[in-house]
């Protein structure tokens, strides 16, 4: 259920992280990485967000992860809606709060107002009753994690918010004495405005985390930001996260993951012996190859042959296709002598074909993680990456690519991504410029006009960690796929799509 714990354990402390505050690894994938190892243990943290930003889910997942991954009991204090409502809402994620409750691992303290009940203030009060109930449950289930959902529901019940603030502060102090790590959710009215609705919630807790769900290029893009960790270091800025029905929240830590991964040095075939030779003997395992070219230059064919080479070697392949339908993919592969249908039936290949608009990139990344984790492919092909750039905002595409890179490194995949350029070549979207910097190998496919005819040529622009053939080679596409010819000599400007000199092709 809780995948991606591996990346959480790979957490590097952020700069200046030697403050000596003990951390509680909370087990929400990706969160602990950006939190510098976890939440400050025994402290309280406000989880603030607009309606629908995932606050309650964050809280519940915090408790579920505690029980499932660390054997830590939890207490859920519900103010806004009855605890059984919360339990029902998270059922679809496969979380059975009732079962944890029966097993004595989880307690629910229900303080939601009952409809039709009247409440009046007739003098001074404190939250002693709540504390007494809470302490009893903490003791009963051996809780080290407590969630209040939400503070927002408490304030309107009382006339003086300063009293509420003082009393909540007393509650968090007591929980701190008990060594319990507490989350309190709170609603905010705007994505970029005051931390929370009543203006005092943030003073009740030690730490503040903000969940956002703004509309960006007509798409919701969820992000998480650690606004404040009192006395403890953490990574700054907004990190995208996704909510999916299998694992709940996954925070995408971007550049913070992946860097520790070891680089594999053994080579494997790209699918074409000639091109392998140009790469200096094949491409590296756990590397990313970008095949860039105009439509019709054979990018999909290269991806097909790349997967086929894996299948021949008994390696599982996973293909994400955003441009062609499944029948088209199967038909094209068959015309190049590759039987993808058989490979799928034998469980060696999975083809995921979808419209790029269908899934937000954050969600796509999480789905890919699940798919890769389940299927354990050796080779991954994405055809094409550029279409994803087209349907998303620049920031989210950049983050997707970084997330994809760390996924590839984490699972030690060898990946091929295609990139569609204009026919003339040359210009690239800014998003894809980013991609170039993280890919290990870049293969350029170009149309060139030579002596009044259009030819195709291939060159290897970059091969990280290895020498490679730097010539520009002509190729043809025939019945057996790509046929590599000799180098094109005595010309220049091919990369720009405008050869400048009379050329000769040596055969």
């Amino acid at each position: 259920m809780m995948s991606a714990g591996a990346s959480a354990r790979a957490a590097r402390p952020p700069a200046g992280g030697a403050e000596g505050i003990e951390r509680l690894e909370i087990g929400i994938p990706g969160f602990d990485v950006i939190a510098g190892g976890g939440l400050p243990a025994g402290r309280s943290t406000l989880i603030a967000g607009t309606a629908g930003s995932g606050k309650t889910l964050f809280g519940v997942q915090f408790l579920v992860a505690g029980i499932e991954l660390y054997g830590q009991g939890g207490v859920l204090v519900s103010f806004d809606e009855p605890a059984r409502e919360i339990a029902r809402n998270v059922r679809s994620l496969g979380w059975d709060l009732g079962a944890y409750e029966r097993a004595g691992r989880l307690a629910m303290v229900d303080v939601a107002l009952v409809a039709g009940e009247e409440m009046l203030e007739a003098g001074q009060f404190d939250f002693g009753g709540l504390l007494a109930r809470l302490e009893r449950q903490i003791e009963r289930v051996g809780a080290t994690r407590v969630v209040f959902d939400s503070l927002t529901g408490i304030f309107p019940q009382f006339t003086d918010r300063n009293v509420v603030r003082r009393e909540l502060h007393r509650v968090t102090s007591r929980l701190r004495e008990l060594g319990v790590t507490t989350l309190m959710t709170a609603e905010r009215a705007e994505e970029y405005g005051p931390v929370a609705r009543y203006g005092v919630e943030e003073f009740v807790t030690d730490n503040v985390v903000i969940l956002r769900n703004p509309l960006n290029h007509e798409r919701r893009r969820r992000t998480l930001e650690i606004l404040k960790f009192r006395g403890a270091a953490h990574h700054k800025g907004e990190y995208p996260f996704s909510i999916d029905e299998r694992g709940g929240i996954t925070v995408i830590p971007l550049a913070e993951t992946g860097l520790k991964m070891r680089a594999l040095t053994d080579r494997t075939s790209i699918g074409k012996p000639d091109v392998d030779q140009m790469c200096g003997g094949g491409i590296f395992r756990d590397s990313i190859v970008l095949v860039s070219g105009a439509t019709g230059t054979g990018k999909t064919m290269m991806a097909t042959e790349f997967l086929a080479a894996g299948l021949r070697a008994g390696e599982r392949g996973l293909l994400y296709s955003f441009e062609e339908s499944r029948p088209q993919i199967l038909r094209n592969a068959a015309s190049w002598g590759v039987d993808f249908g058989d490979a799928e039936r034998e469980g060696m290949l999975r083809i995921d074909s979808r419209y790029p608009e269908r899934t937000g990139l954050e969600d796509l990344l999480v789905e890919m993680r699940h798919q890769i984790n389940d299927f354990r492919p050796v080779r991954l092909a994405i055809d094409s990456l550029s279409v994803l750039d087209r349907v998303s905002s620049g920031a989210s595409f950049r983050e997707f690519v970084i997330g994809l890179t760390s996924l590839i490194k984490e699972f030690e995949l060898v990946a091929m991504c295609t990139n569609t350029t204009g026919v003339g070549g040359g210009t690239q979207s800014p998003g894809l410029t980013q991609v170039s910097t993280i890919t290990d190998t870049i293969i350029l496919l170009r149309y060139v006009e030579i002596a009044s005819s259009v030819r195709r040529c291939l060159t290897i622009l970059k091969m990280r960690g290895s020498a490679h053939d730097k010539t520009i080679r002509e190729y043809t596409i025939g019945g057996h796929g790509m046929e590599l010819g000799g180098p094109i000599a005595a010309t220049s400007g091919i990369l720009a799509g405008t050869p400048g000199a009379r050329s000769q092709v040596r055969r």
Partner: protein
Amino acid sequence: MPRPRVRGAGKGELRLYVTGSTLLSLRAIENLEWSLQQELGELYDYEVIDVLEHPELAAEDGIFATPALVRRQPLPVRKLIGDLSDRELVLRSLRFGGSPREGQTR
């Protein structure tokens, strides 16, 4: 702390939830007893419950701010939060047929 239970037929039912012997708890008990002596004693049976000893009863009545006086019968259930030092409000709220709301907010 536990107070004797007084039972009678056809009477309303009050529960006062307190937390140990804090100043607020003691004041709430004192104020409740005053109200009962004034006029409510004939209308209600009551019991005082220490949440520290009986958190399960407090859970039943959804108690979190204390002291809390809960009128369980007659319906509607009515909760008075605090040490009951607003004696007027207590009387007004708990008279049968009476309305507590005169410029009060929740």
